[in-house]
């Protein structure tokens, strides 16, 4: 009888233990949600930096004057990554240029696709496959008037209990003809990772 009770107890225990094991679950998440998985540069930081810089640029009085009667043409130079992490800064510039373009205030030329555009024009002009009257002409492109460029820097500090990361993103708008910097702004992000007591 006692043996039976023991066996039953062990079986019950095993069942209950098995009922609390981890199992992997796949879910779709909100891409715009604040993400705090770890301390490194994440999607929320990218969205925050791109959003704040775009808003600041669009609200500046200088840009108000520049865009009052025309849509200035810009090109985005790369953002220099001066942090200790690998960060895809092209993704930040993509977000900023897309937001600016969608605002209807600016137009852009894409310097990363110049070679592809040249190949296409060359094909239209010289392959003999395209009606020359309808082929796009060389030498008709419009040059950029302004250049957007910037830096992303970080300071990382840590002790045994806490890690602190500070990011500083600087963006500038230069008038290509005069060389004057017409607008500049910077935004900061501070993230800390430490131990917290959990209670229940």
């Amino acid at each position, binding site marked *: 009888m006692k043996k039976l009770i023991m066996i039953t107890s062990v079986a019950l225990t095993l069942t209950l233990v098995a009922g609390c094991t981890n199992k992997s679950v796949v879910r779709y998440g909100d891409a*715009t949600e*604040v993400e705090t998985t770890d301390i490194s540069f994440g999607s929320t930081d990218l969205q925050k930096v791109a959003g704040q810089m775009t808003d600041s640029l669009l609200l500046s009085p200088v840009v108000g004057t520049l865009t009052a009667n025309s849509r200035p043409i810009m090109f985005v130079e790369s953002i220099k990554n001066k942090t200790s992490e690998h960060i895809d800064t092209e993704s930040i510039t993509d977000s900023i240029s897309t937001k600016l373009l*969608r605002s209807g205030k600016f137009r852009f030329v894409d310097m990363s696709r110049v070679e592809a555009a040249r190949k296409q024009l060359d094909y239209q002009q010289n392959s003999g496959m395209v009606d020359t009257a309808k082929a796009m002409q060389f030498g008709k492109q419009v040059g950029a008037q302004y250049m957007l460029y910037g830096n992303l820097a970080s300071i990382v500090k840590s002790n045994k209990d806490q890690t602190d990361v500070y990011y500083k993103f600087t963006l500038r708008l230069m008038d290509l003809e005069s060389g004057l910097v017409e607008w500049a702004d910077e935004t900061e992000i501070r993230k800390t990772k430490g131990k917290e007591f959990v209670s229940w």
Partner: protein
Amino acid sequence: MTTSIAKIMTKRSALLVAALSVTLFISACKNVPPVTSGVGSDQIAPGQKFSKHLQLHNPKLAKKLHISDIRSRTNNDLLEVNLSLTSTYKKTLQLQYQFTWFDKDGFVLEAGKSPWQPLDLHGMQTATVPGLAPTTTVASFSLYVREVPEEFFKF
């Protein structure tokens, strides 16, 4: 002899009962979905009183935080919004806020592209956070504030 066996069995039974209790305790753990409701507003057009549009979906949060002001104006043809949040709580609130933008017909613009922005609101602090419409066709907006959800295990 019989007494000692009985003692051992009693000890074993006690141990088993203890083990069972611990197991039951652990097995009661489960993932608790985080609270994602908050406070916010329905569609507000410039010039409208914000107090008539407030929505308090989370009374617990509404006790610690209230929307003290919502202002809007047009700047460089774009709708600019300032949202003032006041904490009535002594500790820091880890919040996130989001704006949603609508055109003149009330259709949502740039759906799913307006990110949640993190905001740390310190004890009893009032903070004003800005929002800027993504396009010149925005005529009204809504906003929502909630705590940064943390998934935790409940025993």
